[in-house]
């Protein structure tokens, strides 16, 4: 049997570009995006974010994902050794595909958000039958 791949640690990336009015670091969540004939599907890793604290907005073909972490678990704790920072998550994508915004679905599990973006009917690929002349 082939040995399973081991995960390597990578440092969180801070959001660059337009600055937020609120102070503090925003991080870029790691995402997977895949496409099939019916929909685009997106997953974003946002550890520490629950379903109540995530916001997904699609406006003018721009998809925005914002996840807010609850820093309350750190109340009354003093750091002694740290390897990563904690912060809210923010990421934007411009969608080329025609998405039916009324049918977007999202669910959150174990700090991962899954967003399903169904394509509009007219944007779906269609097979054209070729007839013999």
């Amino acid at each position, binding site marked *: 049997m082939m040995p*399973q*791949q*081991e*995960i*390597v*640690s*990578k440092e969180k990336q801070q959001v660059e570009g337009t600055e937020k009015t*609120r*102070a*503090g*670091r925003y991080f870029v969540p*790691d*995402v*997977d*995006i*895949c*496409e*099939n004939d019916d929909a*685009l*599907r997106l*997953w974003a*890793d*946002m*550890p*520490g*974010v*629950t379903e109540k604290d995530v916001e997904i907005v699609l406006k003018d073909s721009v998809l925005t994902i914002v996840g807010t*972490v609850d*820093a*309350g*678990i*750190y*109340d*009354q*704790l*003093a*750091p*002694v*050794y*740290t*390897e*990563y*920072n*904690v*912060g*809210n998550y923010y990421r934007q994508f411009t969608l080329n595909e025609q998405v039916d915004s009324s049918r977007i679905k999202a669910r959150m*599990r*174990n*700090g*991962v958000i*899954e967003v399903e973006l169904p394509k509009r009917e007219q944007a779906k690929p269609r097979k054209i039958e070729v007839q013999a002349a």
Partner: protein
Amino acid sequence: MALIRFQDIDPVRHLLALQQELERFQRNPGLSLGPSGYGAFPPVNLFEGREGMIAIAELPGVESEALKVAGQGRTLTISGERRRETQTDSVGYHRRERPFGEFSRSLQLPENLDLTQAKASLAAGVLTIRIPKAESAKPRQISVESR
């Protein structure tokens, strides 16, 4: 011991204070966790609280059944596997950034902790392990006899 206190602070400043504290310790680590230190997966933050130490690690997408936390002596081991969500239909990927696979990491904890009494919980992809102080390390009032 400088505890982070969040009472009476608004949530924004509260997070900013936490970020500054975490960064300060990232630059000046006060202790070493042994051979598997910075760069190992999962990254771990270690805190001191009233009852003992708290280790926190981010493990998004890991199910509790696929996660193992073990303690032996002063060594705390976090291991498991992150499996990709099952995909039935054939798909084309636009992006693949998220890591999947197996992981295992051992930490050397400071002395005077009781790993046999440690408790671990997983919520929203964040693993929290609470390790209480050993009985022998707790402060004790010593009675003074008069002669």
